């Protein structure tokens, strides 16, 4: 199980994401610079948080054209796992690998708090059994207000593509959506940071559960390890 964490100019949670998988889960993890054109021997691509390209134009708008994104798209189309966290979620939406878009928080404030999140039953990998009914994860964003047209929203609900909802909506997101998956269930995106809650000194260690649930889509055995 090999993890690749992408690095864009302006990524600032790449080290956190690396540590979540390398030290939190003990998995072989490497960085991949955005100028690379190929992913080598990768099971999960993590698109980390930060401000790729300074969030110029729109969050994620320029990063989606980085050379590595072609390989990420091919990986996703082959059924490979992808997890976008915060700015990574914005990049995946801009790239069309996830539906919808993230706009300015309705408060216009950058919100940096720890949130309670309700876990949804979003398929075999990510659900209340694999993650638990509630998790507590930090957020830190100014553009986390999830938007999608009416038909798209209904598709998300009907297909059970919503992973997480805020208990107390911090940003104005439609239906309090904090994270979604694609229809096929191999591409995951969320504004909350599992990479900021896996050590003893973090506000929770729920990031481990979230990361394991994502990996369980391809590697169901990882859930047994967590029970052991």
């Amino acid at each position: 199980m090999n993890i690749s964490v992408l690095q864009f100019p302006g990524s600032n949670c790449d080290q956190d994401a690396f540590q979540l998988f390398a030290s939190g889960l003990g998995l072989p993890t490497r960085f991949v610079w955005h100028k690379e054109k190929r992913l080598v021997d990768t099971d999960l691509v993590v698109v980390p948080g930060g401000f790729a390209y300074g969030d110029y134009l729109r969050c994620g708008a320029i990063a989606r054209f980085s050379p590595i994104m072609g390989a990420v798209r091919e990986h996703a189309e082959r059924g490979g796992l992808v997890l976008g966290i915060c700015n990574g979620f914005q990049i995946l939406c801009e790239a069309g690998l996830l539906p919808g878009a993230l706009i300015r928080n309705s408060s216009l404030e950058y919100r940096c708090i720890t949130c309670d999140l309700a876990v949804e039953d979003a398929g075999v990998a990510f659900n209340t059994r694999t993650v638990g009914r509630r998790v507590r994860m930090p957020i830190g964003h100014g553009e986390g207000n999830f938007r999608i047209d009416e038909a798209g929203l209904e598709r998300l609900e009907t297909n059970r593509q919503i992973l997480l909802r805020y208990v107390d909506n911090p940003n104005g997101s439609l239906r309090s959506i904090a994270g979604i998956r694609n229809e096929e269930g191999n591409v995951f995106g969320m504004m909350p940071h599992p990479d900021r809650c896996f050590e003893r000194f973090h506000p929770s260690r729920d990031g481990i559960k979230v990361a394991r649930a994502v990996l369980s889509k391809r590697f169901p055995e990882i859930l047994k390890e967590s029970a052991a």
Partner: protein
Amino acid sequence: MKIKVFVTPKKNVLDPQGVAVGHALESLGLLGLRSTRVGKVIELELDGGDSPQFRAQLDKLCRDLLSNPVIEDYHCEITGG
């Protein structure tokens, strides 16, 4: 030729920035304000003339990069083509 690309939030998409600017305009005494939307203008200058092929290319660039069709509309003004 010179091109101005106007990008605006879609009519049915919430524009938190527009709402805040609208409140400020009202607090400065503007009466009868019905709506405020904040967008952006991208100005390009380039060699070469206008053509149907160029319009198609420009349209694609506007959809792919300069705007996000999920939340934004755009239109272009071309001068000196």
